[in-house]
Protein backbone atom coordinates (compact mmCIF):
# COMPACT_ATOMS: atom_id res chain seq x y z
CA UNK A 1 0.00 0.00 0.00
CA UNK A 2 2.82 2.40 0.87
CA UNK A 3 4.56 1.59 -2.39
CA UNK A 4 1.39 2.51 -4.18
CA UNK A 5 1.12 5.70 -2.14
CA UNK A 6 4.68 6.81 -2.91
CA UNK A 7 4.12 5.92 -6.55
CA UNK A 8 1.11 8.26 -6.58
CA UNK A 9 2.95 10.98 -4.68
CA UNK A 10 5.41 11.13 -7.56
CA UNK A 11 2.79 12.90 -9.62
CA UNK A 12 2.74 16.67 -9.05
CA UNK A 13 -1.04 16.90 -9.20
CA UNK A 14 -1.32 14.55 -6.23
CA UNK A 15 1.07 16.73 -4.24
CA UNK A 16 -0.87 19.85 -5.27
CA UNK A 17 -4.08 18.22 -4.10
CA UNK A 18 -2.57 17.48 -0.70
CA UNK A 19 -1.15 20.98 -0.22
CA UNK A 20 -4.30 22.75 -1.36
CA UNK A 21 -6.54 20.33 0.52
CA UNK A 22 -4.64 20.96 3.76
CA UNK A 23 -4.81 24.73 3.41
CA UNK A 24 -8.49 24.77 2.51
CA UNK A 25 -9.49 22.50 5.38
CA UNK A 26 -7.41 24.61 7.77
CA UNK A 27 -9.14 27.83 6.72
CA UNK A 28 -12.63 26.37 6.66
CA UNK A 29 -12.33 24.87 10.14
CA UNK A 30 -11.07 28.10 11.71
CA UNK A 31 -14.00 30.13 10.47
CA UNK A 32 -16.29 27.15 10.98
CA UNK A 33 -16.07 27.63 14.73
CA UNK A 34 -17.32 31.20 14.38
CA UNK A 35 -20.09 30.21 11.97
CA UNK A 36 -21.35 27.44 14.24
CA UNK A 37 -21.25 29.61 17.35
CA UNK A 38 -22.96 32.54 15.64
CA UNK A 39 -25.69 30.07 14.57
CA UNK A 40 -24.85 30.65 10.92
CA UNK A 41 -24.03 27.06 9.97
CA UNK A 42 -26.45 26.97 7.12
CA UNK A 43 -25.05 30.11 5.53
CA UNK A 44 -22.07 28.07 4.35
CA UNK A 45 -24.45 25.82 2.50
CA UNK A 46 -26.37 28.69 0.98
CA UNK A 47 -23.20 30.43 -0.15
CA UNK A 48 -21.83 27.34 -1.82
CA UNK A 49 -24.99 27.08 -3.87
CA UNK A 50 -24.60 30.71 -4.82
CA UNK A 51 -21.02 29.98 -5.87
CA UNK A 52 -22.36 27.14 -8.02
CA UNK A 53 -24.84 29.54 -9.64
CA UNK A 54 -22.04 32.03 -10.27
CA UNK A 55 -19.96 29.26 -11.78
CA UNK A 56 -22.74 28.50 -14.22
CA UNK A 57 -22.98 32.16 -15.17
CA UNK A 58 -19.23 32.26 -15.73
CA UNK A 59 -19.50 29.20 -17.96
CA UNK A 60 -22.30 30.75 -19.99
CA UNK A 61 -20.39 34.00 -20.41
CA UNK A 62 -17.31 31.96 -21.36
CA UNK A 63 -15.10 33.89 -18.95
CA UNK A 64 -11.59 32.51 -19.06
CA UNK A 65 -10.92 32.95 -15.37
CA UNK A 66 -14.25 32.11 -13.77
CA UNK A 67 -12.98 33.18 -10.32
CA UNK A 68 -13.49 36.76 -11.51
CA UNK A 69 -17.22 36.13 -11.41
CA UNK A 70 -17.55 33.51 -8.68
CA UNK A 71 -15.66 35.39 -5.97
CA UNK A 72 -17.39 38.79 -6.27
CA UNK A 73 -20.87 37.26 -6.54
CA UNK A 74 -20.36 34.98 -3.54
CA UNK A 75 -18.84 37.78 -1.48
CA UNK A 76 -21.74 40.08 -2.33
CA UNK A 77 -24.31 37.50 -1.25
CA UNK A 78 -22.33 36.72 1.90
CA UNK A 79 -22.38 40.38 2.86
CA UNK A 80 -26.13 40.56 2.20
CA UNK A 81 -26.83 37.47 4.32
CA UNK A 82 -24.39 38.08 7.17
CA UNK A 83 -24.51 41.84 7.43
CA UNK A 84 -28.16 42.47 6.55
CA UNK A 85 -28.78 41.94 10.26
CA UNK A 86 -31.99 42.91 11.93
CA UNK A 87 -33.08 45.30 9.25
CA UNK A 88 -33.21 42.64 6.56
CA UNK A 89 -36.68 42.44 5.14
CA UNK A 90 -36.70 38.70 4.57
CA UNK A 91 -35.26 37.10 7.62
CA UNK A 92 -32.75 34.47 8.55
CA UNK A 93 -33.31 30.91 7.51
CA UNK A 94 -35.98 31.75 4.95
CA UNK A 95 -33.58 34.11 3.18
CA UNK A 96 -30.87 31.48 3.13
CA UNK A 97 -33.21 28.74 1.90
CA UNK A 98 -34.45 31.04 -0.83
CA UNK A 99 -31.02 32.12 -2.02
CA UNK A 100 -29.62 28.63 -1.72
CA UNK A 101 -32.26 26.75 -3.69
CA UNK A 102 -32.71 29.61 -6.14
CA UNK A 103 -29.04 29.74 -7.04
CA UNK A 104 -28.86 25.99 -7.43
CA UNK A 105 -31.84 25.90 -9.76
CA UNK A 106 -30.72 28.83 -11.89
CA UNK A 107 -27.19 27.46 -12.07
CA UNK A 108 -28.31 24.05 -13.26
CA UNK A 109 -30.78 25.59 -15.69
CA UNK A 110 -28.12 27.85 -17.22
CA UNK A 111 -25.69 24.98 -17.56
CA UNK A 112 -28.30 22.84 -19.26
CA UNK A 113 -29.41 25.49 -21.71
CA UNK A 114 -26.10 27.09 -22.63
CA UNK A 115 -23.41 24.56 -21.95
CA UNK A 116 -21.71 23.29 -25.05
CA UNK A 117 -20.41 20.27 -23.18
CA UNK A 118 -21.97 16.95 -24.04
CA UNK A 119 -21.67 15.85 -20.44
CA UNK A 120 -23.78 18.33 -18.46
CA UNK A 121 -24.72 15.71 -15.89
CA UNK A 122 -21.06 14.94 -15.30
CA UNK A 123 -20.04 18.58 -15.04
CA UNK A 124 -22.82 19.31 -12.58
CA UNK A 125 -22.07 16.19 -10.65
CA UNK A 126 -18.40 16.88 -10.08
CA UNK A 127 -19.13 20.50 -9.22
CA UNK A 128 -21.73 19.52 -6.65
CA UNK A 129 -20.01 16.52 -5.10
CA UNK A 130 -16.36 17.30 -5.79
CA UNK A 131 -15.42 13.83 -6.84
CA UNK A 132 -12.32 14.90 -8.74
CA UNK A 133 -11.92 18.67 -8.58
CA UNK A 134 -9.01 18.77 -6.17
CA UNK A 135 -7.04 16.30 -8.30
CA UNK A 136 -7.68 18.18 -11.50
CA UNK A 137 -6.45 21.62 -10.45
CA UNK A 138 -4.42 23.59 -12.94
CA UNK A 139 -1.25 25.29 -11.67
CA UNK A 140 -2.99 28.69 -11.78
CA UNK A 141 -5.80 27.30 -9.60
CA UNK A 142 -3.21 25.95 -7.18
CA UNK A 143 -1.46 29.31 -6.85
CA UNK A 144 -4.74 31.13 -6.41
CA UNK A 145 -5.92 28.68 -3.74
CA UNK A 146 -2.63 28.90 -1.85
CA UNK A 147 -2.55 32.71 -2.01
CA UNK A 148 -6.17 33.10 -0.88
CA UNK A 149 -5.70 30.56 1.92
CA UNK A 150 -2.69 32.43 3.24
CA UNK A 151 -4.58 35.73 3.15
CA UNK A 152 -7.43 34.10 5.10
CA UNK A 153 -5.06 32.57 7.67
CA UNK A 154 -3.13 35.80 8.25
CA UNK A 155 -6.35 37.77 8.60
CA UNK A 156 -7.69 35.25 11.08
CA UNK A 157 -4.56 35.31 13.25
CA UNK A 158 -4.35 39.11 13.21
CA UNK A 159 -7.99 39.60 14.17
CA UNK A 160 -8.39 36.48 16.29
CA UNK A 161 -9.36 38.36 19.47
CA UNK A 162 -11.70 40.69 17.63
CA UNK A 163 -13.37 37.72 15.96
CA UNK A 164 -13.77 36.08 19.36
CA UNK A 165 -15.24 39.22 20.91
CA UNK A 166 -17.76 39.62 18.09
CA UNK A 167 -18.65 35.95 18.05
CA UNK A 168 -19.25 35.81 21.77
CA UNK A 169 -21.13 39.07 22.19
CA UNK A 170 -21.72 41.45 19.33
CA UNK A 171 -23.62 43.96 21.45
CA UNK A 172 -20.98 44.16 24.12
CA UNK A 173 -18.22 44.48 21.54
CA UNK A 174 -20.11 47.34 19.92
CA UNK A 175 -20.56 49.02 23.30
CA UNK A 176 -16.81 48.87 24.00
CA UNK A 177 -16.09 50.55 20.70
CA UNK A 178 -15.20 47.65 18.43
CA UNK A 179 -16.19 48.42 14.86
CA UNK A 180 -18.57 45.47 14.70
CA UNK A 181 -19.99 46.36 11.30
CA UNK A 182 -16.54 46.43 9.75
CA UNK A 183 -15.49 43.13 11.28
CA UNK A 184 -18.75 41.44 10.35
CA UNK A 185 -18.06 42.59 6.81
CA UNK A 186 -14.56 41.14 7.02
CA UNK A 187 -15.88 37.84 8.38
CA UNK A 188 -18.47 37.68 5.59
CA UNK A 189 -15.80 38.22 2.94
CA UNK A 190 -13.46 35.62 4.44
CA UNK A 191 -16.29 33.10 4.67
CA UNK A 192 -17.23 33.66 1.04
CA UNK A 193 -13.62 33.14 -0.03
CA UNK A 194 -13.39 29.95 2.02
CA UNK A 195 -16.61 28.59 0.58
CA UNK A 196 -15.41 29.18 -2.96
CA UNK A 197 -12.10 27.47 -2.16
CA UNK A 198 -13.76 24.60 -0.31
CA UNK A 199 -15.95 23.94 -3.33
CA UNK A 200 -12.74 22.77 -5.02
CA UNK A 201 -12.13 20.27 -2.30
CA UNK A 202 -15.49 18.69 -1.57
CA UNK A 203 -17.96 20.15 -4.06
CA UNK A 204 -20.74 22.68 -3.52
CA UNK A 205 -23.19 20.42 -1.71
CA UNK A 206 -20.67 19.17 0.83
CA UNK A 207 -19.03 22.47 1.74
CA UNK A 208 -21.09 22.96 4.88
CA UNK A 209 -19.92 19.58 6.18
CA UNK A 210 -16.31 20.68 5.84
CA UNK A 211 -17.11 23.90 7.69
CA UNK A 212 -19.33 22.52 10.44
CA UNK A 213 -18.07 19.05 11.39
CA UNK A 214 -14.57 19.87 12.70
CA UNK A 215 -15.96 22.74 14.78
CA UNK A 216 -18.69 20.55 16.29
CA UNK A 217 -16.20 17.75 16.98
CA UNK A 218 -13.80 20.11 18.74
CA UNK A 219 -16.62 21.71 20.76
CA UNK A 220 -17.59 18.31 22.15
CA UNK A 221 -14.22 17.90 23.82
CA UNK A 222 -12.57 21.27 24.35
CA UNK A 223 -13.77 24.07 26.56
CA UNK A 224 -12.00 27.28 25.70
CA UNK A 225 -12.36 29.13 22.43
CA UNK A 226 -8.66 28.89 21.72
CA UNK A 227 -8.45 25.13 22.26
CA UNK A 228 -11.62 24.59 20.23
CA UNK A 229 -10.19 26.61 17.35
CA UNK A 230 -6.87 24.76 17.38
CA UNK A 231 -8.54 21.36 17.75
CA UNK A 232 -10.97 22.08 14.92
CA UNK A 233 -8.05 22.99 12.67
CA UNK A 234 -6.13 19.83 13.58
CA UNK A 235 -9.16 17.57 13.15
CA UNK A 236 -10.07 19.16 9.85
CA UNK A 237 -6.57 18.86 8.39
CA UNK A 238 -6.19 15.25 9.50
CA UNK A 239 -9.59 14.29 8.10
CA UNK A 240 -8.93 15.98 4.78
CA UNK A 241 -5.50 14.40 4.40
CA UNK A 242 -6.86 10.99 5.33
CA UNK A 243 -9.80 11.52 2.98
CA UNK A 244 -7.63 12.48 0.03
CA UNK A 245 -5.25 9.55 0.58
CA UNK A 246 -8.04 7.01 0.98
CA UNK A 247 -9.77 8.39 -2.10
CA UNK A 248 -6.72 8.03 -4.34
CA UNK A 249 -5.75 4.63 -2.91
CA UNK A 250 -9.20 3.09 -2.85
CA UNK A 251 -10.63 4.95 -5.83
CA UNK A 252 -13.48 6.60 -3.96
CA UNK A 253 -14.80 10.13 -4.70
CA UNK A 254 -12.60 12.67 -2.90
CA UNK A 255 -15.30 15.00 -1.54
CA UNK A 256 -17.51 12.38 0.04
CA UNK A 257 -14.51 10.48 1.42
CA UNK A 258 -13.28 13.58 3.25
CA UNK A 259 -16.75 14.23 4.66
CA UNK A 260 -16.99 10.59 5.75
CA UNK A 261 -13.72 11.07 7.65
CA UNK A 262 -15.14 14.19 9.29
CA UNK A 263 -18.20 12.22 10.36
CA UNK A 264 -16.02 9.48 11.85
CA UNK A 265 -14.02 12.10 13.77
CA UNK A 266 -17.25 13.63 15.05
CA UNK A 267 -18.55 10.26 16.22
CA UNK A 268 -15.29 9.58 18.05
CA UNK A 269 -15.48 12.97 19.76
CA UNK A 270 -19.16 12.46 20.53
CA UNK A 271 -18.60 9.08 22.15
CA UNK A 272 -15.50 10.04 24.13
CA UNK A 273 -17.18 13.17 25.50
CA UNK A 274 -20.41 11.56 26.64
Amino acid sequence: MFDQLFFYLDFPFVRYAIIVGTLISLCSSLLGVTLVLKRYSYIGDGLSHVAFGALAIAAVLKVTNNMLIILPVTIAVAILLLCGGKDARIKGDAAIAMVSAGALAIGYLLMNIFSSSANVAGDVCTTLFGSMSILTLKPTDVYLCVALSIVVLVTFVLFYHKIFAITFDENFARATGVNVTLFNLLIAIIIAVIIVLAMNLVGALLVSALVVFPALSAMRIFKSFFSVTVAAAVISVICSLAGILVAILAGTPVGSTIVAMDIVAFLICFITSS
Partner: protein
Amino acid sequence: MYKVFSRITIIAILCIFSLSTSSVAAENISANHVDLDLTRMSSTMVYSMVFQMVTEPQKFVGKRIKMKGAFSSYYDEESKRRFFGCVIKDALACCSQGLAFETFKPRKYPKDFPSEGSSITIIGRFDYEKEEDGIGFPIIRNAIFIK
Protein backbone atom coordinates in the same frame (compact mmCIF):
# COMPACT_ATOMS: atom_id res chain seq x y z
CA MET B 1 -14.13 21.77 -10.90
CA TYR B 2 -14.16 24.92 -12.98
CA LYS B 3 -11.84 23.30 -15.42
CA VAL B 4 -14.70 21.12 -16.39
CA PHE B 5 -16.01 23.97 -18.44
CA SER B 6 -12.81 25.22 -19.92
CA ARG B 7 -12.06 21.93 -21.48
CA ILE B 8 -15.56 21.26 -22.66
CA THR B 9 -14.42 20.43 -26.13
CA ILE B 10 -12.15 17.65 -24.99
CA ILE B 11 -14.06 15.92 -22.31
CA ALA B 12 -17.21 14.55 -23.71
CA ILE B 13 -18.91 11.33 -22.97
CA LEU B 14 -17.47 10.02 -26.18
CA CYS B 15 -13.99 11.01 -26.94
CA ILE B 16 -12.72 11.66 -30.32
CA PHE B 17 -11.27 8.75 -32.09
CA SER B 18 -9.06 8.36 -35.02
CA LEU B 19 -8.65 5.76 -37.64
CA SER B 20 -5.88 7.36 -39.57
CA THR B 21 -3.72 4.54 -40.79
CA SER B 22 -0.90 6.61 -42.16
CA SER B 23 1.68 6.25 -39.46
CA VAL B 24 1.12 2.64 -38.51
CA ALA B 25 3.82 0.03 -39.06
CA ALA B 26 6.60 2.60 -38.76
CA GLU B 27 7.02 1.87 -35.13
CA ASN B 28 8.90 -0.79 -33.38
CA ILE B 29 6.91 -2.08 -30.49
CA SER B 30 9.17 -3.57 -27.90
CA ALA B 31 6.80 -6.17 -26.61
CA ASN B 32 4.67 -4.94 -23.76
CA HIS B 33 6.97 -2.22 -22.44
CA VAL B 34 4.94 0.47 -20.64
CA ASP B 35 5.95 3.88 -19.21
CA LEU B 36 2.68 4.63 -17.51
CA ASP B 37 0.45 1.78 -16.44
CA LEU B 38 -3.02 3.09 -15.66
CA THR B 39 -4.33 -0.40 -14.95
CA ARG B 40 -2.32 -0.42 -11.72
CA MET B 41 -4.04 2.71 -10.45
CA SER B 42 -7.25 3.30 -8.54
CA SER B 43 -10.18 4.71 -10.46
CA THR B 44 -9.71 8.14 -8.86
CA MET B 45 -6.09 8.21 -9.99
CA VAL B 46 -6.90 6.95 -13.46
CA TYR B 47 -9.45 9.68 -13.98
CA SER B 48 -7.04 12.33 -12.71
CA MET B 49 -4.21 10.98 -14.87
CA VAL B 50 -6.33 11.02 -18.00
CA PHE B 51 -7.37 14.54 -17.12
CA GLN B 52 -3.69 15.52 -16.93
CA MET B 53 -3.04 13.89 -20.30
CA VAL B 54 -5.89 15.76 -21.87
CA THR B 55 -5.05 19.17 -20.38
CA GLU B 56 -1.27 18.98 -20.59
CA PRO B 57 -0.60 16.52 -23.39
CA GLN B 58 2.90 17.83 -24.13
CA LYS B 59 4.11 16.23 -20.88
CA PHE B 60 3.05 12.79 -22.00
CA VAL B 61 3.83 12.75 -25.72
CA GLY B 62 5.94 9.72 -26.61
CA LYS B 63 5.17 7.77 -23.45
CA ARG B 64 3.81 4.27 -23.74
CA ILE B 65 0.52 4.04 -21.94
CA LYS B 66 -1.40 1.01 -20.76
CA MET B 67 -5.03 1.60 -19.91
CA LYS B 68 -8.25 -0.25 -19.31
CA GLY B 69 -11.65 1.14 -20.12
CA ALA B 70 -14.84 0.69 -22.06
CA PHE B 71 -14.63 0.45 -25.85
CA SER B 72 -16.47 3.08 -27.74
CA SER B 73 -16.63 4.26 -31.31
CA TYR B 74 -18.08 7.22 -33.11
CA TYR B 75 -18.38 8.19 -36.75
CA ASP B 76 -17.70 11.82 -37.55
CA GLU B 77 -19.80 12.89 -40.54
CA GLU B 78 -17.68 15.93 -41.34
CA SER B 79 -14.31 14.31 -41.53
CA LYS B 80 -15.76 11.00 -42.67
CA ARG B 81 -13.65 9.32 -40.05
CA ARG B 82 -14.50 6.71 -37.50
CA PHE B 83 -12.99 7.32 -34.10
CA PHE B 84 -12.25 4.68 -31.47
CA GLY B 85 -11.84 5.33 -27.78
CA CYS B 86 -11.11 3.87 -24.41
CA VAL B 87 -13.51 5.49 -21.93
CA ILE B 88 -13.06 5.64 -18.15
CA LYS B 89 -15.39 6.91 -15.45
CA ASP B 90 -14.70 8.80 -12.26
CA ALA B 91 -15.42 7.46 -8.81
CA LEU B 92 -18.93 8.87 -8.77
CA ALA B 93 -19.55 7.34 -12.19
CA CYS B 94 -21.09 10.55 -13.38
CA CYS B 95 -18.15 12.00 -15.23
CA SER B 96 -16.45 10.09 -17.91
CA GLN B 97 -13.64 10.93 -20.22
CA GLY B 98 -11.55 8.90 -22.55
CA LEU B 99 -8.62 8.74 -24.86
CA ALA B 100 -8.84 8.12 -28.55
CA PHE B 101 -6.69 5.39 -30.01
CA GLU B 102 -5.71 4.00 -33.36
CA THR B 103 -4.77 0.38 -33.78
CA PHE B 104 -1.35 -0.92 -34.70
CA LYS B 105 -2.66 -2.99 -37.58
CA PRO B 106 -5.51 -1.63 -39.67
CA ARG B 107 -8.68 -3.37 -38.71
CA LYS B 108 -12.13 -3.46 -40.22
CA TYR B 109 -15.04 -1.98 -38.29
CA PRO B 110 -17.09 -3.55 -36.80
CA LYS B 111 -15.85 -7.05 -37.62
CA ASP B 112 -12.38 -6.73 -36.07
CA PHE B 113 -13.40 -4.67 -33.04
CA PRO B 114 -14.95 -5.56 -29.69
CA SER B 115 -18.58 -4.70 -29.14
CA GLU B 116 -19.56 -1.23 -27.95
CA GLY B 117 -19.10 -0.81 -24.19
CA SER B 118 -17.10 -3.95 -23.64
CA SER B 119 -14.03 -3.78 -21.46
CA ILE B 120 -10.72 -3.39 -23.26
CA THR B 121 -7.10 -3.01 -22.23
CA ILE B 122 -4.76 -1.29 -24.66
CA ILE B 123 -1.09 -0.39 -24.85
CA GLY B 124 0.13 2.33 -27.17
CA ARG B 125 2.19 5.46 -27.58
CA PHE B 126 0.67 8.75 -26.40
CA ASP B 127 0.52 11.47 -29.03
CA TYR B 128 -1.21 14.75 -29.60
CA GLU B 129 -2.90 15.25 -32.92
CA LYS B 130 -3.37 18.81 -34.13
CA GLU B 131 -6.36 19.49 -36.30
CA GLU B 132 -6.52 22.15 -39.01
CA ASP B 133 -8.47 24.53 -36.82
CA GLY B 134 -5.69 24.48 -34.23
CA ILE B 135 -7.64 22.53 -31.66
CA GLY B 136 -6.00 19.19 -31.09
CA PHE B 137 -6.78 16.06 -29.19
CA PRO B 138 -4.72 13.40 -27.47
CA ILE B 139 -4.55 10.01 -29.09
CA ILE B 140 -2.90 6.69 -28.39
CA ARG B 141 -1.14 5.46 -31.50
CA ASN B 142 -0.17 1.98 -32.54
CA ALA B 143 -2.45 0.54 -29.92
CA ILE B 144 -2.53 -3.17 -29.33
CA PHE B 145 -5.28 -4.99 -27.48
CA ILE B 146 -4.25 -6.95 -24.41
CA LYS B 147 -6.26 -9.83 -23.11
